[in-house]
């Protein structure tokens, strides 16, 4: 029950003769600003805690000394004068001192994207920069791939330090030196590029001078282009560069971004975070600097048809031909010179006619069961919706799936089974209201970097205690109160032990268990066999540590859990998730602020693609294909007869292709060659397809197996809605024109459908969205207009005024009887345990700078330069045992294949396990992984297989 709120206490003061009332705790500067009195500032930025170091904001409060208004609290009865000749003189002097050695080329309009506040003040005060002697040069640090540091232009306002420490919590920057020699320093005064900086760009955004600027704006090409187009002023961005309010194409956090576009050149010049509940203007390196892939010269611009000579089908480049790497060239991109000659350019009419006709023939000859489609979680809701509509209503099969199968299928299976809905119950930013946040199986700082900033901030504030359970010593562990470094694949044992402790010490929410759940007794019985001592043996951590974690968790008033692929990508993925759900149910941590279940979604639209029905067992909005009433509704809407049988999943479809059961396929923006487990099997499967249509922006490894390749648009070249991990539906707006003849994905799907004989025609994504929302109750009421700039959470009962529902399941669960269900799980070891021959456990995952199969990020200059080569991370003792050293070339072999890459010593690993990111085609981790599936989620065990490591043969 909320008490009647008392009005916030206020203080009364006069500023420049004006009587004003301000909330207690506001600074003089804030109080003045509220009534429209502007006091100049330099070191102050409203997004940051005030520091009061520059003294430009001095005001007279009737004391002997002037006060810095950005930090001084407004007090009752205070009388403030913001401008006197003395104050103005001081300000002018300060600005002149700072300006004295300010480099001429710093903060110029060409390279400074934010306002240059120093130059602005200088102009306002008509300052004379020559009044003081200039100091000698402090250097320029060009070592970072993304930010240029001009120490001479730095005024030591500390804004960057606060941005790095307090906003992004990366803790990289400090001051170094003394007196005139003081500079900002990265870590122990390392060059920025060699420091622990993660290139998020927050410091560059915060800097009020030309000290920190975007490096690419300085480099030759960009600068020349600017002079060529006669545009010299970025400050005139509103007139010269067109700002486009959109979102990020990378991860499920879905940061709101403004792209600044040079229309003449059809190029994004730079990107910046914009205000939104999702990211509060923050971005990570991918969102801020990774947009240039769209302008890569290798973009597909014309439809391609496989030449007669390129049959029988098979891989075309040396890299994709075999797994043993013998003929492989170094480098990260498909070799166009090698692959393109096997295709010929065609007109859209010809390519579509051929694709439509051949798919139709296969369908007619072999039946709908021989058809399948892979949609993509990179495409928009509209595109996902149309894609599954074509497969279901056109092809006549439910064999439609997408990459969610490879990430959270098991989580969703567990969530549907236990609480009736696969979406998150609360948004990630609510971590600030949680007493405890459990983060497990998620290398959050790399994979959901901006969500991670909210977690790190919550921990830093002291409000939230973080528990990390992970086999690797990830960065988040440094922010954790308790860190359990468990053996890979032993999660179930660990959480069963937690539950054992919670029950034993009665740290339960009995009311919640009694009124909201079922099946607790069975769970209680099972976890009784898992005292911490038993789990300690299995997990390789101390029993007392497990107790400590469980107690901390159990005694929290509110707890929230975040999990990622480390939980889901196991053959026990569903069990892992079930355990987490049970943990939350027995402590009543669902349905209130500060609590909830949050499987962090990987792709920018993995939530939306699932919502839109790219799942073989459900229509849009999770309406079961087997339900006759539901089916009737969709049959009427789509004017077609629909298959009542659930379709096949990703790995099953590949298996079907291998066996010759699946013959015709349509792939939109997916690259299973690199993303699916056991590449050697995928290769054979793809080659075995009778007809394959690939729609993508680049010629991917998968496209080498295609009969027809259709050139699609990148994220920036089309409009659509995307649903982030929080369930927030946001509009991505068109920033660029597509290159050549490339077409929007939704248009291509319509055209292909029409060519196939199931005509589809829409004028705009908004029209598709309207059709989709009419069939998907959760999206009911949402329109492009009311989504506005910051989008809305689904469900949104009052879309015209509300933001959507943040916390779900407050009173009841969307299960048939409204109760949440405990599903007890026994611990089961992974499918392929290490043995004498293959002694290491292989863990796969992602790096901060790269995205999945690298199609985009390896074509982005900055991202590629920061992380150019594949490396296998290993513990020092393992390297020593194998008589290897950091930087050696090694061959990693599993029962399925081998790859060669560079060994990297990492303090984040434990002995006995190795980590390989799966972005790198030249050392594709999935050559090694095992295609064993979780029985419920059908998700492959990417996170665990046995490998051996040996020095590479030269």
């Amino acid at each position, binding site marked *: 029950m909320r008490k009647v709120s008392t009005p916030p206490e206020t203080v009364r003061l006069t500023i420049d003769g004006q009587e004003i009332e301000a909330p207690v705790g506001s600074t003089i500067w804030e109080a003045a600003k509220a009534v429209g009195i502007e006091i100049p500032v330099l070191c102050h930025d409203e997004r940051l805690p005030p520091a009061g170091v520059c003294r430009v904001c001095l005001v007279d409060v009737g004391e002997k000394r002037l006060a810095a208004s950005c930090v001084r609290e407004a007090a009752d009865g205070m009388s403030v004068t913001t401008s006197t000749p003395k104050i103005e003189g001081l300000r002018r002097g300060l600005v002149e001192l700072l300006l004295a050695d300010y480099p001429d080329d710093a903060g110029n309009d060409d390279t400074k994207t934010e306002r240059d506040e120093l130059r602005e003040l200088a102009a306002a005060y008509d300052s004379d920069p020559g009044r003081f002697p200039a100091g*000698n*040069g402090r250097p320029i640090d060009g070592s970072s791939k993304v930010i240029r540091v001009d120490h001479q232009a730095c005024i030591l306002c500390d804004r960057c330090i606060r941005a790095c420490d307090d906003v992004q919590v990366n803790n990289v920057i*400090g001051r*170094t030196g*003394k007196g*005139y020699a003081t500079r900002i*320093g990265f870590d122990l*005064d390392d060059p920025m590029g060699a420091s622990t900086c993660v290139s998020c760009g927050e410091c560059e955004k915060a800097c009020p001078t030309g000290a920190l600027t975007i490096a690419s704006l300085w480099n030759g090409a960009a600068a020349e282009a600017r002079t060529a187009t006669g545009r010299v002023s970025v400050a005139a961005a509103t007139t010269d560069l067109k700002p486009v309010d959109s979102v990020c194409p990378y991860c499920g956090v879905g940061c709101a971004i403004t792209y600044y576009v040079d229309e003449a050149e059809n190029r994004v010049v730079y990107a910046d975070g914009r205000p939104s509940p999702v990211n509060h203007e923050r971005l990570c390196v991918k969102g801020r600097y990774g947009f240039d892939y769209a302008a890569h010269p290798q973009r597909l611009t014309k439809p391609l048809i496989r030449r007669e000579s390129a049959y029988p089908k098979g891989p075309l480049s040396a890299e994709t031909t075999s797994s043993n790497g013998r003929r492989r060239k170094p480098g990260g991109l498909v070799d166009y010179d090698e692959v393109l000659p096997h295709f010929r350019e065609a007109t859209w009419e010809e390519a579509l006619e051929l694709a439509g006709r051949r798919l139709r023939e296969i369908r007619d000859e072999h039946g709908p069961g021989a058809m399948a489609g892979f949609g993509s979680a990179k495409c928009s809701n509209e595109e996902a919706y149309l894609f599954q509509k074509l497969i279901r209503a056109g092809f006549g099969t439910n064999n439609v799936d997408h990459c969610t199968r490879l990430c959270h299928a098991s989580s969703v299976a567990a969530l549907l089974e236990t609480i009736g809905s696969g979406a998150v119950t609360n948004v990630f930013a609510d971590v600030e209201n949680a007493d405890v946040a459990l983060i497990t199986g998620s290398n959050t700082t790399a994979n959901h970097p901006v969500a991670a900033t909210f977690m790190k901030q919550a921990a830093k504030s002291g409000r939230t205690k973080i528990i990390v359970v992970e086999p690797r010593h990830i960065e988040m562990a440094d922010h954790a109160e308790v860190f359990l470094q468990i053996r890979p694949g032993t999660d179930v044992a660990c959480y069963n032990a937690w539950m054992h402790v919670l029950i034993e010490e009665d740290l339960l929410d009995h009311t919640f268990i009694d009124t909201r759940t079922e099946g607790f007794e069975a769970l209680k019985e099972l976890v009784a066999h898992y005292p911490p001592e038993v789990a300690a043996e299995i997990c390789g951590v101390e029993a007392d540590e497990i107790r400590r974690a469980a107690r901390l968790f159990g005694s929290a008033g509110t707890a929230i859990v975040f999990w990622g692929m480390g939980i889901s990508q196991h053959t026990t993925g569903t069990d892992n998730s079930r355990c987490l759900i049970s943990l939350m149910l027995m402590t009543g941590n669902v349905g209130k602020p500060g609590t909830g279940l949050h499987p962090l979604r990987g792709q920018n639209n993995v939530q939306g693609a699932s919502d839109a029905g790219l799942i073989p067992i459900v229509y849009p909005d999770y309406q079961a294909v087997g339900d006759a009433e539901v089916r009737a509704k969709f049959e009427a809407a789509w004017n077609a007869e629909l298959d009542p049988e659930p379709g096949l999943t990703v790995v099953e479809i590949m298996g079907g292709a291998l066996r010759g059961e699946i013959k015709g396929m349509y792939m939109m923006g997916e690259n299973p060659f690199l993303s699916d487990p056991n590449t050697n099997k995928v290769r054979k499967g793809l080659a075995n397809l009778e007809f394959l249509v690939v729609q993508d922006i680049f010629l991917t490894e998968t496209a080498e197996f295609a009969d027809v390749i259709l050139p699609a648009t990148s994220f920036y070249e089309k409009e659509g809605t995307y649903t982030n991990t929080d369930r927030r539906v946001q509009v991505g707006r068109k920033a660029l024109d597509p290159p050549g003849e490339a077409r929007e994905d939704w248009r291509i799907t319509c055209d292909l459908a029409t060519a196939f004989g199931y005509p589809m025609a829409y004028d705009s994504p908004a029209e598709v969205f309207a059709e989709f929302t009419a069939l998907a109750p959760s999206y009911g009421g949402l329109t492009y207009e009311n989504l506005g700039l910051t989008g809305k959470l689904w469900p949104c009962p009052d879309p015209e005024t509300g933001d959507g529902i943040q916390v779900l399941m407050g009173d009841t669960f969307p299960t048939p009887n409204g109760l949440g269900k405990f599903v007890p799980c026994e611990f089961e070891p992974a499918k392929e345990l290490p043995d004498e021959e293959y002694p290491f456990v292989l863990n796969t995952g992602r790096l901060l700078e790269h995205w999945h199969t690298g199609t985009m990020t390896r074509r982005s200059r900055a991202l590629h330069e920061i992380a150019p080569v594949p490396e296998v991370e290993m513990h020092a003792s393992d390297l020593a045992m194998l008589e290897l050293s950091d930087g050696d070339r090694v061959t990693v072999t599993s029962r399925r294949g081998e790859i060669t890459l560079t060994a990297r010593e990492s303090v984040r690993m434990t002995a006995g396990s190795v980590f390989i990111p799966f972005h790198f085609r030249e050392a594709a981790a999935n050559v090694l992984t095992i295609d064993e599936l979780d029985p419920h989620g059908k998700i492959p065990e990417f996170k665990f297989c046995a490998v051996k490591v040996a020095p590479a043969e030269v």
Partner: protein
Amino acid sequence: MKKVHPAVVGAQPFQLAEHRPVERLFEDAEGRDRLEKSLSRYPEKKGALLPMLAYAQERNGWLSPEAMEEIAEALDLTPAYVRSVATFYTMYAKRPVGRYWIQVCTCISCHVNRGEEVFESFLEHTGTRAGEVSEDGRYTVIEAECLGACGFATVVQVNDRYFENVTPETVPEVLAQLEPGEPEA
């Protein structure tokens, strides 16, 4: 080479101290003991920063990046913060120093009493540049902030010993006193 003001030298970026093997601080009983004693005296871990920097210098003769990192870790601070504190005080040696660490005050009182000239004179007589170790490993000369003996400007501190009223002319005398019997360097 461009002439750089001596004060800036030690803090030029990327002049990382040469990496010579340094002892880890808190891996033996002595180090841990010092850390714990220090921690017990302050309400916050952060409080132990200055004593631990001093301890590292006492133990290794200078404050290496490794030591700063170790201290940051032990006190839950960021390396950048530790360095900002360490570099604020001239009395912490951020690079290896010679056997005689000569700190010449050039703050206000000493400045008006020819402190800079004294400083230059020390550089000349030791044949070094600011912050450098002389070839024979004996001397390092730096400029120091006020040494708290302003009445006796110019003040020079050599290791733990103060020399007062030093003038450029008396510099050789000071050096001679350091190692009686040995010829001046």
